[in-house]
């Protein structure tokens, strides 16, 4: 028998359909989008309906890993609810990242807050945010400055 600590822990996306599978290696995981066959509109995550035209013929569409910061704010106090970020809390950027596909994604930013600037180049980072009570690794994303 393999000791429990040597078994590879099961990885789960923080939201179903948000990331490409498999979740290993993490450096190759992308954000998963959907493209509508009818209107060609691209949206974040695996979906059932096109949010633009309502068409149900939509296909998985992995999204680019690089983008530009469209706007941002700085979160200076621990967010309310079950926030899983670092404890003790440290301030971080939160922004809309514009991808070459033409969508803007809300994302936490991994960059020195004094360096944040509209238009800055960013790259996707997929990482373990926390382990749930069953020992699963919960995989989330953020964008870091290049």
């Amino acid at each position: 028998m393999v000791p429990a600590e040597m078994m590879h822990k099961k990885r789960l996306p923080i939201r179903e359909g948000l990331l490409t599978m498999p979740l290993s290696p993490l450096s190759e995981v992308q954000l998963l989008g959907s493209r509508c066959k009818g209107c060609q509109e691209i949206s974040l995550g695996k979906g059932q309906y096109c949010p633009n035209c309502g068409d149900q013929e939509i296909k998985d569409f992995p999204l680019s890993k690089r983008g530009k910061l469209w706007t941002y704010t700085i979160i200076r106090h621990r967010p309310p609810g079950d926030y899983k970020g670092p404890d003790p809390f440290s301030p971080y950027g939160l922004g809309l990242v514009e991808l070459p596909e033409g969508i803007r994604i809300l994302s936490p930013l991994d960059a020195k807050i004094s360096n944040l600037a509209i238009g800055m180049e960013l790259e996707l980072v997929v990482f373990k945010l926390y382990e749930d009570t069953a020992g699963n690794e919960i995989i989330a994303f953020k964008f870091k400055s290049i």
Partner: protein
Amino acid sequence: MKDVAIIGIGIHKFGRFGDKSYIKMGQEATDMALRDAGVNIREIQAAYLSEMYLPATSGARILRPMAAQGIPICDVEAACASGGVVLRQAMLGIQSGAVKIALVLGVEKMPRGFMDPGMIYEKWQIEMGMAVNPSYWAMNARRHMREYGTTELQIAKVAYKNHKNSVHNPYSMYQKEFSIEEILNSPVVCDPLRLYELCAPNEGAAAVVLCPREDAHKYSKIPIAIASCAHTIPMYSSDFRAPTDCMSAKITNPGPAEVTSSQAYEEAGIGPEDIDCFEVQDTDAFCELETYEKIGLCKPGESGRLIDEGVTEIGGKHPVNMSGGLISKGEPIGASHLGQIVEIVMQMRNQAGLRQVSNAKVGLAQVIGAGGNCAVTILKK
């Protein structure tokens, strides 16, 4: 289709009231509105309650002890726009002829501090640190500053104006003037927005009584007509709103405040230039600037100039938030829009005391919030 008039208004001060129940606050606002209209509660044929944080069947719990019996009471939630939705439903009921006298009530008693993010965000967004108010407006502000050169001083001027107006509003949570320096020196909460530029969730109630305009003279010396009342959710990718996961950078549809105000203007047959006073959503000071542009008070990018020129002060060409706005009153979500309606009716009846706009004949109230729910009501003397 029958025209609809407001014949009674009532309000319970917005603020924090300890153990005082939402039932008591709702009853006080209702009682004031019924007395103002000279209507007995047994004459009410339909009642509507807007709220977001109250328990099930709150409308019945508030009104049944006052002897409302055997009538429909609808409890409605549409986040910050809840009050617009109930007003619209009551208006449609009277327009159709199905209802002769309606009571519209908004009541809220919210927990202290940040609103429970689970009410408007998904679990994963909360865990990743994306469920923070007012990050949405803060990001809009940052982008606006970049595109149009809007300044932190211009944002602070909105807070200055609203706090100054609130001094004369006995129903406001805060009635205190702050200097521009005090506002700009208050702590940054969500860059670039500062503490004295933000509204607080709180408690309060507001109520109005409606009837067909043709019957209004029986009840009120100065009935106020509802020229229009519109409510919409956003078009695809028109804007990013809490909660959000993405928006299109290619498709730009008009935002919810643009769409809803356009509908309201069209239905009323007037435009923003015809309106004498406004009460608009100022969840934060930037939000009010953005609203100037979205409801057509100025072109995109010109809202900073509007505040610099004093256009929206009491005494300016288009006074906005004579009541002190949400920044001063706080935002008891379910009561918010009806509180705006009460203020506009007071202005038109010349009952607004030291915050009175001279010769106010047409007024507009606007709210916008979670899910992009937006409501716009236009009232006419």
